[in-house]
């Protein structure tokens, strides 16, 4: 990009980057301009260094909005015009955030491609001006600096542009994105965050002065590898090979479902091959095209949904949960413990046997230790976090618990038993939350002395990776109980949807018919690998057969049986006997080492489990050729999912389509590029989906009958879930 140089704060990322070049003509500077009031940017002059402070009003983060753009270029023009100013520092007044990126609302407000292209060009002009500035400019970055913010602050590297990765500050320095790091300060004469920003500014000013006085060289020392790489890239043949390789890799990762990365490669290619002007033009056009795509709309929708699901709509709970107790140290229980202890919650993990407890505690430890290996935690922090966990076999200490989450085996009578046991020992204010994936909470609460304190908290496995938490309220659950559950979930870093009680709630209920279809498709002779590739190429992050293995065949069987009983024929399709036979042979999926695939510790390659052949053969169904094309198979799965999701909204299980989309994408891996089932209906067209459903209904019957709400949407094209 440019001849640039920077400094920055570790772990919370404050960095400097210095932009500089030659040839700008200066005008006279009017001293009064520093006093002008601007809403997004203000600047002052310290000695001969202009300090430009970015501070978007009424917002936690700075975003690249139109107003910020115009004020910024105004300020920069004044700085360039001034004789007194020899260098400048760009800094944010918000702790922990430089510029988070482009303002999504601004992009969403754009109606046409031209509008977006124009916005992009405006932004480019500023960045270009910064790059070509005669006066050294130091970007002092404290906290997140993403997207456009990174372009202002830091020259972008190819890999970062492609994957939208978050990188830690020390990595950024190694990658040469920033020139210097400033570590966050502790308490002094002011609150640490405040003083850290001040300090960053002080150091940045020294650097700006040094650059202006030519005491500091803006050139970075390149390592040998870097020099060699730079040399190699001057050879056209090598370049072509690099483009090819990168494109291949990107296609493999995105399966062609996300248009952005390939366009970025195009832009970089244009920039390198045809010069930067062509590159900029190409960039703004492609950016405009991208913003207008369905994928972009879907992803922006998810962003808004996620923001919504990170709020507690029940308000603050009366009492903060500080002591948490978890019953059951299985995968789920230990996972919940893991995301709780590192947030400072004192957590009791209880199980009935020492073996199970040991395994659970080890899981929590391993989760923390993996972070140590990745240098996200020190071993000391790990130990200190781990000390928040108490493993035990009895109910000692439950008298202090503010919330108990049970994650015992999915068996109603067992859940009843622990509920009664727990209620005998917990204090009056303590909440009882059940982590069940399918058992109705009201049935669990039926034996409770205080049903207003009973709620469902459905976590997703693996708990430390899956962002979703589905909270289930019964008619008797009090508002304060809900507020408390949401508060705990938010503390654990979860994205939360709140749904009404019912068999399978929302997520499990949507998944069940799709799983039933998975079984039927397998029975029809599609092999699991083929099915996996069909589903992943549709945008699911995990293939359908692999998903069954990951969830656990026994769990899937349980859910299929329970929900099958309630919903009857509509949840039919595949023969549940398949799951029953797998369970009886011990093919429980990843946890038992065998499912549709064979899993071995340390082996990445997945081989099909050949013992499944006989089971599949014995249950074989003749495929119906009119609905068995690859596309039909994909749509049979997705339409059943979508139909059930819409039915949940129709029945009031879901409060809003946004929560439905978030739940499906974050909890079940519904393709993010489609934005969730409701966004999908909007963008793809309700009519087309109903047509598909009717086609499959003709072949298979009731399981594909479109629900009323979906039919309504198909009948009146103006009806949208998102207006």
């Amino acid at each position, binding site marked *: 990009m440019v001849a640039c140089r920077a*400094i920055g704060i570790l772990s919370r990322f404050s960095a400097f980057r210095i932009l500089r070049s030659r040839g700008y003509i200066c005008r006279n500077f009017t001293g009064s301009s520093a006093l002008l009031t601007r809403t997004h940017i203000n600047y002052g002059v310290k000695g001969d260094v202009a300090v430009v402070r970015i501070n978007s009003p009424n917002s936690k983060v700075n975003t690249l909005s139109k107003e910020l753009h115009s004020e910024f270029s105004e300020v920069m023009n004044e700085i360039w015009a001034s004789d007194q100013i020899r260098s400048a520092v760009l800094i944010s007044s918000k702790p922990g955030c430089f510029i988070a990126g482009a303002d999504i609302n601004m992009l969403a407000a754009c109606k046409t491609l031209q509008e977006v292209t124009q916005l992009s060009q405006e932004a480019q002009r500023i960045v270009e001006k910064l790059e070509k500035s005669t006066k050294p400019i130091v970007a002092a970055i404290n906290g997140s600096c993403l997207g456009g913010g990174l372009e202002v602050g830091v020259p972008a590297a190819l890999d970062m542009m492609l994957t939208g990765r978050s990188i830690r500050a020390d990595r950024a320095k190694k990658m040469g994105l920033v020139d210097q790091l400033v570590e966050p300060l*502790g308490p*002094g*004469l002011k609150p640490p965050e405040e*003083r850290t920003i001040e*300090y960053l500014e002080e150091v940045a000013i020294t650097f700006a002065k040094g650059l202006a006085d030519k005491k500091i060289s803006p050139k970075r020392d390149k390592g040998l590898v870097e020099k060699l790489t730079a040399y190699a890239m001057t050879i056209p043949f090598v370049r072509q090979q690099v483009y090819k390789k990168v494109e291949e890799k990107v296609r493999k990762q995105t399966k062609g479902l996300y248009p952005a990365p390939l366009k970025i490669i195009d832009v970089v290619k244009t920039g390198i091959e045809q010069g930067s002007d062509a590159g900029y033009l190409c960039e703004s056009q492609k950016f405009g095209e991208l913003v207008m795509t369905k994928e972009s709309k879907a992803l922006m929708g998810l962003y808004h949904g996620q923001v919504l699901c990170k709020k507690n709509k029940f308000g603050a709970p009366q009492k903060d949960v500080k002591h948490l107790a978890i019953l059951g140290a299985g995968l789920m229980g230990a996972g919940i413990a893991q995301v709780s202890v590192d947030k400072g919650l004192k957590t009791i993990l209880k199980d009935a046997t020492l073996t199970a407890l040991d395994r659970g505690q080890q899981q929590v430890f391993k989760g923390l230790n993996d972070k140590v290996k990745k240098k996200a935690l020190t071993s*000391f922090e790990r130990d200190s976090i781990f000390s928040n966990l108490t493993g035990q076999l009895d109910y000692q200490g439950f008298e202090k618990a503010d919330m108990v989450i049970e994650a015992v085996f999915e068996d109603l009578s067992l859940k009843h038993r622990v509920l009664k046991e727990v209620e005998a020992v917990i204090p009056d204010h303590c909440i009882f939350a059940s982590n069940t994936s399918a058992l109705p909470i009201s049935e669990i609460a039926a034996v409770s002395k205080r049903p207003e304190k009973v709620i469902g908290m459905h976590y997703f496995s693996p708990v430390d990776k899956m962002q979703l938490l589905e909270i289930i309220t019964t008619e008797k659950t009090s508002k304060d109980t809900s507020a408390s559950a949401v508060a705990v979930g938010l503390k654990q870093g979860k994205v939360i949807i709140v749904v009404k009680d019912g068999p399978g709630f929302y997520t499990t209920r949507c998944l069940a018919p799709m799983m039933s279809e998975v079984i039927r498709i397998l029975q029809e002779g599609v092999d699991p690998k083929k099915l996996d590739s069909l589903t992943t190429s549709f945008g699911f992050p995990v293939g359908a057969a692999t998903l069954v293995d990951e969830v656990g065949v026994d769990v899937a069987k349980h859910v299929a049986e329970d929900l099958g009983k309630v919903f009857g024929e509509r949840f039919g399709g595949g023969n549940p006997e398949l799951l029953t036979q797998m369970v009886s042979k011990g093919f429980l999926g990843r946890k038992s080492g065998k499912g549709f695939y064979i899993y071995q510790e340390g082996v990445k390659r997945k081989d099909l489990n050949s013992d499944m052949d006989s089971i599949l053969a014995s249950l074989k169904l003749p495929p119906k050729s009119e609905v068995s094309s690859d596309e039909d198979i994909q749509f049979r799965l997705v339409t059943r999912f979508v139909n059930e999701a819409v039915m949940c909204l129709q029945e009031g299980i879901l409060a809003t389509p946004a929560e439905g989309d978030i739940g499906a994408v974050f909890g079940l891996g519904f393709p993010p590029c489609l934005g969730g089932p409701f966004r999908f209906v909007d963008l793809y067209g309700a009519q087309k989906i109903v047509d598909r459903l009717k086609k499959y209904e003709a072949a298979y019957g009731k399981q594909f009958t479109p629900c009323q709400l979906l039919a309504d949407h198909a009948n009146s094209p103006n009806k949208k879930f998102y207006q």
Partner: protein
Amino acid sequence: MTILTYPFKNLPTASKWALRFSIRPLSCSSQLRAAPAVQTKTKKTLAKPNIRNVVVVDGVRTPFLLSGTSYKDLMPHDLARAALTGLLHRTSVPKEVVDYIIFGTVIQEVKTSNVAREAALGAGFSDKTPAHTVTMACISANQAMTTGVGLIASGQCDVIVAGGVELMSDVPIRHSRKMRKLMLDLNKAKSMGQRLSLISKFRFNFLAPELPAVSEFSTSETMGHSADRLAAAFAVSRLEQDEYALRSHSLAKKAQDEGLLSDVVPFKVPDTVTKDNGIRPSSLEQMAKLKPAFIKPYGTVTAANSSFLTDGASAMLIMAEEKALAMGYKPKAYLRDFMYVSQDPKDQLLLGPTYATPKVLEKAGLTMNDIDAFEFHEAFSGQILANFKAMDSDWFAENYMGRKTKVGLPPLEKFNNWGGSLSLGHPFGATGCRLVMAAANRLRKEGGQYGLVAACAAGGQGHAMIVEAYPK
């Protein structure tokens, strides 16, 4: 009376000083007593009913040398032994009356992990006197002394030798864990086959040595780095730090030249070393040229404003007051209330003195104004100045110390008047005794009743103790 011959123009305020002495029976003089009373000592003495008074008979130390100089071929117990023989010589204490010996040390020589015992045996103490070694980073010697105080006060012992030693010229550098494991397994291997299979596991990277940790174990941050961040948090400038370091070196030089560092005993290595060799007053210009040592390139902590790696040992004879008097000694000082504190080892690693000072003063019923001699351990100029700023800040006191008002600033004219760790050197395990002896000797020389000793230590810990001059 020394004090009466001390030129009055050197005293901060004549009346304040006058009053101080007026209440001390030994310093009575009608002339002084007539001075108007502005302030009064809060207490006459810190003796407590039913608790034995503990006194320092005397204390000595070897010259503190830059590591890698004259002591470089010694072992730690050699240095410790020199301090012990020096103490025997200075006090002529009969070796059989010593009940117990305690030494502090930080980086342990593995061969002499109980360095107190090894040194005592070689120094001619009775082999019937038990000895143990304590470690508490830079306040190890403080821990040795206060352990002794506890043993005496509780009536378990009458006579204690406490001290400390550090030899930074040599540190244990280990084989890597992998190599150690291989060597230990080889030891246990029974057959040639087993041995060969173990040897086949050897990789060249096993040979990478493991240096003793220079960084805080809990945070992996080196102390200099932390000091630099601390200085930045309290907005202490590079110039202020250099000025403070220059003050320390100038005062140490003056004290050395005037022969005030009377606790130093010569040590024959074979050549006789008589003086500390780290005192090098420079100029601010010279100091300004140095590059930052830890946070590069914009940090403020440099080699010139930090304490240097030092070799040295110290030892003190501590007794129950009645025992000392019965043996005909004229003690130098009482060891009074003391306090250990600890706080966040990341962001407040070196703020121990700020936390410990008000606590020990409150415990003793004294105020900052009652203290005549401050002896604070100077790890870094930035650390001392950050502590000053913290002690002078109401905001810090309210938000981090749970106090309503600031601790208050120790007056600089009473502060480390004979130099400090920055200039005299800082052998980690030995500094505590040097601080106490400096306070005791200063009180005798400059006059005054109470001294306050304070120090920070790795692990975010800190210590403070009141030293009361023994009436002459």
